[in-house]
C-alpha cells in the first residue's frame, strides 16, 4: 500500500483484521479484547473505500455519519479531522466504533460487501475517535448562542446523551437527570470493560459536559421529581430515555435461589460497581465455578464472558433455539467460543435445583426442537417429551430480555403506553401523547441497540427544536 499513487484496484485488497488479545490471555483479565488498528492499518483499510457518489452506507447509519467523508480523511492521514467529522453527527464515536452492529447497518450495505468484504467502517470509526482522545487535546467547538429555553432529559444513556449533545448545539440549556450515580446508562452498567472500557465512556461524557450539557446524577425521575415537576421548574420540554431497565425472569421454580442473578444485576455489579475488582471495590459478586447463562443475545454473551473472567471453570450458554437464531452478534458468539464458552443449544431451563442453604446447585433442562416459524420469523422451539436432564451450576445468570421500567410512565399522567408499558410515540420524532414530552430509545422500542437509541435521540432533538421554535419570529 506504500506505493499507491496510481489508482489501485481497491476491491482486491482484503479487509484488514484488527489485532486482538489472545483468548487464553484475555480470559484472565478484563482488558479490552480488540486492540484497535494501528495508523498504518487504518490508512490501508480506509483506502479500500471507493468513495461512492451516492453512498448507501450513510443511509444505513441511524445517526447519519458522513462515512465516506471521515474514511477519506483517515486515508489521507488526517485523523483529527476524521474524528471531528464523526462528531458532527455522532455524540459517541468511540462507543459506536466498538458496540454498533455495523454488519447489520453501514457495512451491510457497503458496495464492497457485494463482491467481497465491506470496508471496516466500525473499526475506522473507533480508530479515529481513539486517536483524538489519546492525543489528550480534544477540540471543543464554540458554544451555540443560548436561546433561553430549557430541556430536561431523563436518563443519561446513549439516547439521552445524544439528544443532549444535539440540543446544546441548537442553543438549549440542557440538563440530563440520571438515576444512577454515574452517567452512561447501559454503556456503564451493562457493557463489560472488555468490550467497552469505561474510561472511554467517561471521556465521551466529559466531552459532552464541555459542550455545555449538564448532568445531575442520583435523580430518580418519578421519585425525587416527576415530569410535571420538571415543567413546573421551568423546563420547556422533556425527553424520556430511561431504557428498558427491568429484568425479565422466566418464572420457573427455584428462580429466586441464591446464586441466581438477572443479567442486569450480574453485569451492574461487575461493570458499574466494579465487583470484578472486589475487595478493592466494596461491591461483591459471586465468583461461580460452574456458571450457566440463560439466553442467546449480546447480554448473555457479555454475562458468560464476564463469568469466565471471574474465574469460572465451566461457563455455559443455554439457549432454546439453534445458533442460527441467536440474536447475539456473530462477533460476540465467536469471541465467546474462542474463550471456551460451552453452548448448550436447543435447551430450555424448566427448574432450578437448590441445596439446604437455598443455593442453586443445578438447572433442570429439557431439550427442544425447532417447529414452525413464530411471529418473529424464527422457528419456534418445541420441547422434546421426556428429554429432561440436569446441568450442574453454582451460579446462574438469566439473560432472557428486559422490559419497561414503570416508574416514569406511572408518575406521568396522560403519558400513553402500550400494554407492555412502553411509551407510545406518534412517529419517529418521539412525540408522545403529552404536550412537550418526547421519548426515545428502549423505553419506546423495547430492548434494541445503542445506535438505534442514539438515532432516536437525534430525531427527537430535531422535533423538540422544531416544537420550541414554533411561534418565534
Amino acid at each position, binding site marked *: 500500500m506504500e506505493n499507491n499513487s496510481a489508482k489501485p484496484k481497491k476491491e482486491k485488497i482484503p479487509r484488514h483484521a484488527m489485532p486482538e488479545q489472545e483468548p487464553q490471555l484475555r480470559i484472565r483479565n478484563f482488558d479490552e479484547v480488540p486492540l484497535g488498528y494501528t495508523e498504518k492499518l487504518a490508512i490501508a483499510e480506509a483506502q479500500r473505500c471507493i468513495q461512492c457518489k451516492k453512498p448507501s452506507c450513510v443511509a444505513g447509519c441511524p445517526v447519519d455519519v458522513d462515512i465516506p467523508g471521515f474514511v477519506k480523511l483517515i486515508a489521507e492521514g488526517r485523523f483529527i479531522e476524521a474524528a471531528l467529522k464523526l462528531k458532527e453527527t455522532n455524540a459517541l464515536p468511540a462507543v459506536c466504533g466498538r458496540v454498533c452492529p455495523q454488519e447489520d447497518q453501514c457495512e451491510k450495505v457497503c458496495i464492497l460487501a457485494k463482491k467481497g468484504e465491506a470496508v471496516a467502517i466500525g473499526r475506522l470509526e473507533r480508530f479515529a475517535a481513539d486517536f483524538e482522545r489519546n492525543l489528550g487535546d480534544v477540540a471543543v467547538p464554540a458554544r451555540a448562542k443560548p436561546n433561553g429555553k430549557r430541556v430536561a432529559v431523563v436518563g443519561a444513556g446513549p439516547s439521552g446523551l445524544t439528544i443532549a449533545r444535539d440540543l446544546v448545539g441548537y442553543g438549549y440549556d440542557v440538563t440530563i437527570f440520571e438515576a444512577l*450515580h454515574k452517567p452512561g446508562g447501559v454503556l456503564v452498567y451493562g457493557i463489560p470493560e472488555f468490550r467497552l472500557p469505561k474510561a472511554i465512556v467517561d471521556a465521551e461524557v466529559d466531552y459532552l459536559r464541555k459542550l455545555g450539557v449538564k448532568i445531575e446524577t442520583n435523580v*430518580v425521575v418519578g421519585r425525587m421529581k416527576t415530569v410535571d415537576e420538571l415543567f413546573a421548574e421551568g423546563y420547556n420540554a422533556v425527553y424520556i430515555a430511561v431504557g428498558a431497565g427491568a429484568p425479565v425472569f422466566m418464572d420457573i421454580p427455584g428462580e429466586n435461589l441464591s446464586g441466581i442473578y438477572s443479567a442486569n444485576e450480574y453485569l451492574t455489579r461487575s461493570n458499574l460497581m466494579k465487583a470484578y475488582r472486589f475487595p478493592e471495590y466494596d461491591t461483591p459478586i459471586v465468583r461461580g465455578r460452574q456458571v450457566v447463562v440463560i439466553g442467546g443475545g449480546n447480554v448473555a454473551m457479555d454475562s458468560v464472558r464476564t463469568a469466565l473472567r471471574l474465574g469460572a471453570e465451566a461457563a455455559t450458554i443455554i439457549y432454546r433455539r439453534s445458533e442460527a437464531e441467536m440474536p447475539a452478534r456473530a462477533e460476540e458468539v465467536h469471541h465467546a467460543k474462542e474463550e471456551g464458552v460451552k453452548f448448550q443449544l436447543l435447551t430450555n431451563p424448566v427448574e432450578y435445583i437448590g441445596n439446604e442453604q437455598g443455593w442453586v446447585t443445578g438447572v433442570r433442562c429439557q431439550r427442544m426442537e425447532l417447529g414452525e416459524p413464530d411471529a418473529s420469523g424464527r422457528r419456534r422451539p418445541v420441547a422434546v417429551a421426556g428429554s429432561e436432564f440436569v446441568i450442574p451450576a453454582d451460579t446462574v445468570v438469566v439473560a432472557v430480555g428486559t422490559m419497561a421500567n414503570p416508574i416514569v410512565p406511572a408518575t406521568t399522567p396522560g403519558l400513553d403506553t402500550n400494554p407492555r408499558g412502553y411509551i407510545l410515540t406518534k412517529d419517529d420524532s418521539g412525540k408522545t401523547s403529552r404536550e412537550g414530552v418526547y421519548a426515545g430509545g428502549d423505553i419506546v422500542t423495547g430492548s434494541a441497540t445503542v445506535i438505534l437509541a442514539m438515532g432516536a435521540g437525534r430525531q427527537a432533538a430535531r422535533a423538540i427544536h422544531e416544537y420550541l421554535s414554533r411561534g418565534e419570529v
Partner: protein
Amino acid sequence: MNRIVERQDLSENVVRMVLEAPEIARKRRAGQFIILKIDEKGERIPLTIVDSDAREGTITIIFQVVGKTTAVLARMNAGESLSDVQGPLGNPTEIENFGRVVCIGGGVGVGVVYPLAAALKKAGNHVTSIIGARCKSLLILEQEMKQVSDRLIVATDDGSYGFHGFVSAVLQNMIDAGEKIDRVYAIGPVPMMRVLANLTRPYGIKTIVSLNPIMVDATGMCGACRVSVGGKTKFTCVDGPEFDGHEVDFNLLSNRLRMYSEQEKQTMEAHRCECHGK
C-alpha cells in the same frame, strides 16, 4: 451536597446521622428509603429515611454497623460528605386512620418504624408502640417513640429494662387481654418479623413488615432484592419495601441476605486491620 450535618452514637454500634439532602427532604414520605454510597469504590446500600426537615433540607438515617460500609460510615464525622445519596426510593407507607395500631420495632428496626408511628399518629390512629432490644444499652429512640405513641412499651431480651422478654410476648399479652388491634407494623430482624407474622396470622390481624434485602440500583433494574410474597416474586425496591407479613417467604429472605456473607466477612476483617493500623 450529601454533607453529614450531625452524627450521634445511639448505642454501642448504632449511629444516627443527619444528612444534607434538600430535594429528598422535601419529597420523602414515611416508609421510603435512600441508597447511599460513601466514595468512588463504595457499594450502594439502602437505608430508611427515619426523619426529615424540609426547611433545613436534611434527612435523618440510623444504621447499625454490620459490614464494611456501615463501619466506614460510622467513623465519618459531621462536615464530611458522601459521594452519593439517591432517593427517596420505595413506596411510601399507606397511611390512613385504621383505628388502633401497634408499631413494633426491634433493634435498629426501631428507626424504621419510627416514621411510620409518627405518620400513623398524625393520621389519627391510636398508636401503641412496642420497642425492643437485646439489653437496655442497645435500645434506641425511646423518647422519640414516646412522643409519637399513645402508649409505649419497652422490652429487653435480658430484662435489663422494661418488659423482660421479646416484643412478640408483649403483643401476645395484648391479644390475650382482648385488646382491639386493627393493624400491626413489625419491623426488625428477619426472625422477629417472622415470629410476629406467625403470631398475628391466626387472629387475622393485618401485619405489615418492612423488608431489608440486598439491593444494588434500587429502581427496579436488577432484581437483587427479589422476595416472594404470596407465592409471587416481588422487587422490594419498587414493589415494597412494605409487604403483608402473612404472605412473605421469610426463609427465602434470610437465605438471600446471606448470599455474600463470606465476602462481607472478608472485607470487614480487612477493614478492622486497616483501622487498627491507624
